[in-house]
């Protein structure tokens, strides 16, 4: 696998020797149901390095959202290990997980991302307030990040006064402002038109690379994987294929999902 990453790195200028930020080891999630045990995620192992932007794709029901929920410390795995910065998420108490989510994870969701009664700037700063770290420097950084995302004029706007793409960009700023180890995005382009969708994902990719974070994006829109460094394909709870080279990824983005 390392050889593959090296190959991808030469293609996309990733520093090859970056440390592993996230590692999953034989992670499984099972649910009891009337039809017996459902294996939503089944024996999934992979790792994501710092500065690497990975896409998690697959048809609905493939287990990618469940996987994301476990990576986000919202759900504990039934078995296996989930190591973020060397700490096993599976062994943590609820309180430790809440703390981990605000300290080490950045998150953007499909919808209802932003707190509706806070302005764009307040939404970004919220992440710093949650960590008790909102100071003058933090405020300046929040403003700079929003400006960088083209929202310099929108900082005092409420989410309802912004377009879907602008809201997603605010969510991206919120996901990154506290320097998390892992940035997760759940279908970030679901409510956007194609052009805005490309813009949002490109911005996301750039920021992850620049800030040297590990990024994972769950998406059903294969065109968006063009900005990622690697694609993990899931089906029936299993990790069935990885697309590593530029050629493979571009092929996938062009619509060739191999089964």
């Amino acid at each position: 696998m390392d050889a593959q990453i090296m190959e991808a790195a030469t293609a996309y200028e990733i520093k090859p020797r970056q440390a592993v930020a996230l590692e999953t080891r034989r992670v499984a999630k099972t649910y009891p149901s009337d039809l017996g045990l459902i294996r939503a995620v089944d024996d999934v192992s992979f790792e994501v390095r710092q500065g690497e932007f990975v896409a998690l794709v697959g048809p609905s029901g493939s287990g990618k959202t469940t996987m994301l929920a476990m990576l986000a410390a919202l759900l504990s795995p039934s078995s296996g290990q989930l190591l973020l910065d060397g700490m096993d998420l599976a062994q943590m108490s609820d309180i430790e997980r809440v703390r981990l989510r605000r300290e080490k994870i950045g998150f953007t969701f499909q919808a209802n991302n932003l707190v509706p009664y806070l302005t764009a700037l307040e939404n970004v700063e919220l992440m710093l307030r949650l960590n008790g770290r909102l100071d003058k420097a933090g405020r300046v950084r929040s403003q700079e990040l929003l400006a960088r995302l083209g929202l310099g004029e929108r900082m005092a706007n409420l989410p309802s006064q912004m377009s879907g793409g602008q809201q997603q960009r605010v969510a991206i700023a919120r996901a990154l402002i506290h320097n998390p180890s892992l940035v997760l995005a759940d279908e970030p382009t679901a409510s956007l038109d194609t052009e805005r969708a490309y813009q949002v994902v490109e911005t996301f990719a750039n920021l992850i690379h620049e800030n040297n974070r590990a990024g994972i994006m769950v998406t059903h829109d294969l065109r968006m994987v063009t900005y990622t460094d690697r694609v993990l394909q899931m089906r029936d709870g299993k990790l069935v294929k990885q697309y590593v080279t530029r050629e493979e990824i571009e092929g996938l983005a062009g619509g060739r999902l191999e089964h």
Partner: protein
Amino acid sequence: MATKVSNPSADLPVFLSFKEVWRNRGRFLLFSLVIALITLLVLFIAALGEGLGNGNREYLAKLDAQLLVYSEKSDFLIAASRVDPALSTSIRRVPGVENAGPLGTSSVNLVSRESGQTLKISLIGAEPGRPGLPPVISGQPLRASKANEMIIDSNVAERSDIKVGDTVVVQSTQGTDTEEYRLRVIGLTDSRQYSLAPTAFVPFQTWDKVRPKSQAEVNSNNPTANVIAVRVSNPAEMEVVEARIFENIQNVETATIEKAIQNVPGYSAQQSTIQTQGVFTLFIGLLVIGGFFQIQVLQKVPQIGVLKAIGAPNPVIAAASVLQILIVTALGVAIGGLLTFLFSLSFPPTVPIVFNGQRTLLALGLLLLIGPVGGLVSIRYAVRIEPLKALGLSS
């Protein structure tokens, strides 16, 4: 574990709740107005209870005596009790009794000689120097037993043009005739309502002369009082004294002032009715507030889910919810209190509402409390929302 523990800023709940209320101020103000109207209703019921209660109770509650002696089988109804005023002489001899005197109560018309205005009042007769006559706040107290003099309470002064120094006419029906007696108002006392009417005080013998009488009473020369008011030397020994009176005096029954008040016709029934109304209004308030915040939380499930997913701990969510409820309730109660005050200014003195009673304070306290209590269910619900909702998942 993480080497550096980072907790949310202490002011985060304040920040979240104030921002939410301020940015949705239209909606929250509307709801505060609903609470304000409930407050208005509760305060009016409380004030009416206090006012009506005062109307029945005030004279007795302020009486300078601790016991009333009734005729036997009067069921502690002052108006139904008939005692010989001379009985007070025997009662004064009972050890532990400091003073005792006859009280007579009746209802008469008081006519102002200047304007001809007629006012229906309670006329109370008591012997000068004995319990039953109130202290005056201006003018002179009653001193002479048979003088044609009168003290009026502040309600008489407020509702008529009668003032100290005036001569007034007392109209009462005696037998089949309506008699008129001229009395001079020599003093004014504070509010001492009796039987929901303004009250005037005259010496007992004057009272016995001017009060309404049946034909039989007109023909009889024996004065009759309703009750004997008894002041004991040591209020701590009241029960002992009460027992002694009961032993030594024939054909009487005794009651403390509190018991006498409870037995004023209609008083208990009226007070319990008003109390029930107040409690139900508070209960409605509780449900309305609870319902509003519950609907509000239901609407916010995804939003609260996101907050939790990005690491907002439950205490922050709960504290923000409580604060929000407190802000809205306090604002509503404040507006309601102000509205009530403004409304009360427009009421004539004849409307029996009293806002300075303990009941108003109690009502205000309860109103402030029903917000958080009513919102408890919604707070519990908010705390239980799973962060997985942010992903559209549930466990």
